[in-house]
């Protein structure tokens, strides 16, 4: 809400100190944000004492203008007459940071300028100069009009603060000054006339009043009105509309004038029909639905209730008869329409937060008075129908209030606090509060607590150390695992990243994802889907760092991904690595991180988590030149791969593991006594065809030997020189062990023989060496 300090000062009848105002605002739950000072230059009010035509140039007049001295100014403005007051900037003085110069019009000197509305910034175009309706000759602009405008943030539950009167009232509470502005708030009386007004939707419109005027003269508003509207962020339109706007800003009650000659009475307040059309003042066409509320005549809607008027009934210069609407509309219905159609107006902002039902008739009356004075209007009729405002009371318990607020106030203290907000309290323990008509926000007992705390001062409430202990039982073992994983990855040299979970569906399509969660109302194409993988974010992180010259990277992220059927989320660990193995070492061995560093990281991770039986299987993944699936007893846990060169021009590796899935594989550790008998270790090397894969051989060895082989390790792999083409040498180290005795060499020899035979027959391998360690 923009607030003119000058206007507030007029209402409060005192000068305001902005620093003090800021403090008070904070303490009461408002915030003063931007402050605007409106003073475009060194402007003085002058009176035109003589007008004479320029001797040689047509359409120019020479003016003699009196301020404290006389100025001769040549002008083309035609909207002025003798004795008019105008704004003068004398030559040599500043206007909008520029010095105004002296000009010569065919031998006639002009020693200053007159200011137009366009130059003042209150109109887009103007033909004449401003004729001033306030102040005296010689007075400075800054003393009469200059204004400081505050942008005040008010809470959405306080519609009363969307008005100058409400703000003035609230500031007076905070500053401890008397609010002497006497608002009339007479009791509401209904004057029915169904030939003029009919409410068909009482839910949408609890109260409607129409005040009818004749002989209205529609013209431009005087400068002071336009200036005030401009300071308050609105534009001057004509005297009628401007008066309704000024009164809305003053009281918070939105008003709407209709040209009565352009509508067919009676006007009906009803819900819109499905797909009914509505054309706004600006000419935009909307399709309505049944929850929208309209003001209509026989021919259709003449206003979208509480939001915006229709073009067909607006006030123009030829308007003679006016119907002035002042009403109370259901906030929910206004909010619905405003949100659905996306039209926010000064009226809708106030109605959807809740206007003051009790002020509907009074503001209409005030506005009528203004119409009479400024538009020569004659009031002919007043119709008021619907619900009347009733005084509101809230009862509340003193003890409960004290216990919730950590206070110990007696009834008198509570009364004295609340009366500052014009809330009258009666009773002893169970208290009754009479709520002032403008406080729409006070609805329940707890609202009164807040009001007490607010006036008492939040910072004056004591800090209380709680004297009880409480335990909530939530067992979530994932947290410990996630913490462990993060620390583990840090320890392995990976830095943690955070990536946006919103990604582009086009990129996902390119990566072969066809099913993923799409947004209904995306911000833009870049963020229109939810990530089904952590890969894109980490890929972006690689690219961002490469562009900054960081080529060696180990990065990870722990985060949720989303799966399309069922809209489920899954927690995953993703990591990328690539570049030099020891990027900071002086002894350059040209060693780069390779696939086996990546795979080793994964293997160690599972070992650290004590998860056994991890298997890697061949896998195809779009975006990767080679990849393997990470599985455990046929359950897919994730994958690991070499990022395709099209996506990353350096060799980088990526792996992703589902944390939710590995959680099910983690068991509490259990104790096994360390073995008492030493292992018998044997090395066996074979020559294999190149297509034979290590896991297959290992599996066979384990199957043949059974539990007597504790582990099998590949200790040698060789391919190339000295070996026939298409062949490779694999050396396995076997650990033989029995839990209850030391194995004899003979026993082991037998197993080794069996293993060798099986490997040879199953894989067509040739034995190369056999060694006892």
């Amino acid at each position: 809400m923009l607030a003119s300090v000058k206007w507030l000062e007029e209402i409060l009848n005192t000068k305001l100190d902005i620093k003090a105002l800021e403090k008070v605002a904070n303490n009461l739950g408002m915030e003063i944000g931007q402050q605007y000072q409106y003073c475009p230059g060194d402007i003085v009010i002058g009176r035109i004492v003589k007008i004479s035509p320029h001797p040689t140039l047509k359409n120019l007049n020479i003016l003699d203008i009196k301020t404290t001295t006389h100025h001769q100014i040549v002008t083309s403005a035609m909207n002025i007459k003798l004795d008019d007051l105008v704004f003068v900037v004398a030559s040599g003085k500043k206007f909008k940071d520029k010095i105004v110069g002296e000009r010569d019009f065919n031998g006639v000197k002009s020693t200053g300028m007159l200011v137009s509305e366009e130059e003042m910034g209150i109109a887009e175009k103007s033909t004449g100069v401003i004729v001033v309706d306030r102040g005296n000759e010689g007075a400075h602009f800054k003393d009469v009009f200059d204004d400081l405008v505050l942008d005040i943030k008010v809470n959405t539950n306080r519609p009363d603060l969307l008005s100058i009167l409400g703000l003035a009232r609230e500031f007076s509470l905070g500053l401890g000054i008397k609010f002497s502005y006497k608002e009339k708030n007479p009791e509401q009386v209904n004057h029915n006339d169904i030939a003029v007004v009919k409410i068909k939707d009482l839910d949408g419109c609890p109260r409607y009043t129409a005040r009818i005027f004749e002989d209205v003269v529609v013209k431009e508003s005087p400068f002071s009105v336009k200036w005030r509207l401009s300071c308050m962020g609105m534009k001057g339109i004509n005297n009628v509309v401007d008066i309704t706007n000024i009164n809305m800003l003053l009281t918070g009650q939105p008003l709407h004038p209709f040209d009565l000659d352009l509508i067919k009475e009676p006007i009906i307040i009803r819900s819109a029909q499905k797909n009914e059309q509505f054309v706004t003042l600006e000419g935009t066409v909307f399709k309505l639905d049944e929850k929208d509320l309209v003001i209509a005549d026989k021919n259709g809607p003449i206003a979208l209730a509480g939001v915006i008027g229709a073009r067909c009934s607006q006030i123009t210069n030829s308007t003679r008869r006016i119907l002035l609407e002042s009403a109370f509309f259901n906030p929910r219905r206004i909010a619905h329409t405003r949100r659905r159609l996306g039209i926010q107006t000064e009226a809708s902002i106030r109605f959807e937060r809740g206007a003051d039902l009790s002020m509907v008739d009074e503001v209409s009356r005030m506005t009528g008075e203004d119409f009479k004075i400024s538009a020569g209007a004659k009031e002919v009729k007043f119709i008021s129908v619907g619900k009347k405002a009733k005084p509101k009371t809230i009862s509340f318990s003193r003890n409960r209030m004290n216990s919730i607020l950590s206070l110990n106030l007696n009834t008198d203290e509570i009364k004295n606090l609340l009366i500052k907000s014009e809330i009258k309290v009666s009773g002893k323990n169970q208290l009754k509060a009479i709520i002032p008509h403008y406080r729409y926000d006070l609805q329940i007992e707890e609202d009164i607590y807040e009001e007490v705390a607010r006036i008492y001062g939040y910072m004056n409430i004591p800090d209380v150390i709680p004297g009880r202990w409480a335990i909530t039982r939530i067992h979530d073992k994932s947290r410990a695992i996630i913490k462990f994983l993060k620390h583990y990855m840090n320890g392995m040299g990976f830095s943690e990243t955070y990536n946006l979970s919103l990604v582009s569906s086009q990129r996902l399509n390119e990566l072969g994802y066809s099913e993923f969660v799409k947004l209904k109302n995306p911000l833009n194409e870049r963020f229109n889907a939810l990530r089904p993988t952590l890969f894109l974010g980490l890929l972006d992180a690689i690219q961002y760092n490469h562009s900054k010259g960081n080529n060696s990277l180990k990065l990870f992220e722990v985060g949720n991904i989303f799966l399309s059927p069922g809209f489920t989320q899954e927690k995953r660990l993703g990591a990328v690595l690539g570049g030099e193995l020891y990027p900071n070492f002086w002894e350059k061995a040209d060693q780069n991180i390779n696939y086996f560093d990546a795979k080793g990281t994964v293997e160690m991770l599972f070992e650290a988590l004590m998860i056994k039986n991890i298997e890697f299987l061949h896998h195809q993944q779009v975006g990767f030149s080679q990849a393997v699936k990470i599985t455990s007893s046929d359950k897919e846990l994730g994958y690991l791969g070499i990022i395709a060169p099209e996506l990353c021009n350096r060799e980088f590796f990526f792996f992703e593991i589902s944390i939710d899935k590995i959680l099910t594989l983690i068991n509490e550790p259990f104790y096994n006594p360390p073995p008492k008998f030493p292992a018998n270790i044997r090395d066996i090397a074979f020559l294999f065809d190149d297509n034979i894969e290590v896991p297959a051989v290992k599996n066979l060895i384990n199957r043949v030997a059974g539990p007597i082989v504790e582990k099998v390790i590949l200790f040698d792999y060789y391919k190339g020189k000295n070996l026939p083409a298409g062949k490779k040498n694999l050396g396995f180290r076997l650990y033989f062990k029995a839990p209850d005795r030391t194995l004899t060499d003979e026993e082991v020899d037998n197993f080794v023989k069996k293993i060798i035979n099986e490997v040879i027959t199953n894989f067509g391998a040739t034995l190369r060496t056999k060694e006892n360690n």
Partner: protein
Amino acid sequence: MEQKINELKSNINAELDKIKDLNTLEAFRIRYLGRKGILNELFKELANFPLEEKRKLGNEINQLKSKLNEFLNTKLSEFNQISVFRIDPLLPGRTGYVGHRHPLSLIQDEIESFFENLGFVVASGPEIEYDWYNFEALNIPKDHPARDNFSSLFITDELLLRSHTSPVQIRVMEKTKPPIKIICPGRCYRFDPFDPSHSPVFHQVEVLYVDKGVSFGELKWLLSEFVKQIFGPKIRYELRPSFFPFTEPSGELAISCAVCQGDGCPVCGNTGWLEMLGCGMVHPQVLKNVKISPKVYSGYALGMGIERVAMIKYLIDDIRVFYNNDMRFLEQF
């Protein structure tokens, strides 16, 4: 005997040249000076000589012995020195990668441990949320103007990306009987552009305590301890009235601007204060919505943005740096 000694001396001279390292030196020492070494053997032989000769020869052997000892010591320290100085011990070591924590992770941990130490338990909920949990149950019905403060990203009419972590409150309260003392950190989403002061994805921490007799003063105490813990004991703060549909009374905590110390600067919009978090006593309607009687129980709740805390604490002026993952940024944490 004398001849034997002379022979020995020339043998020794010849062998001395062959000593190249600690191993050969040690072998040499054992051979000549060891307990059963040649020199000791000579001493034993001396026993059979007459006293005069014994003394003379003994002297000679002793001299030889001390000469050898001296030689050995020199050689020994020479070899030892070589072995130490063969590498340059001041060259940098072979370091691999050092993993850094993300600042948002650090702040979240710091916040979590503060509350965990006070007996709060960490709870979590889904990021794709029902309208009921995100709004309705929190006393924000459809067409409530407060929904505008939570401009949301929707998936279907009823499913959206949660715009705050408050829905976790509801999820826990639905399933758990009071006392409920939880902290819920998590990722949230808003219909916001990705610019220096906005991000469509951000993180919040929600704190909730529902029990018999929970009061506003207790919330105030908690807040004062919390800001001191996170920003240091000298921080100035103010609790101000505010409005949230799910709390009543509601408050907002502002702390003195970390950049200008409260004098006013562009960071704090010249106010000298930075808004830190929203809080309040749980609205009775919210308790009713989860079938907890507001007549028996009361509670407080507070919520804050993790990015905001990190930006204030580390004086970061562009929220996007958290998501660029520039190593030069990550390395600072």
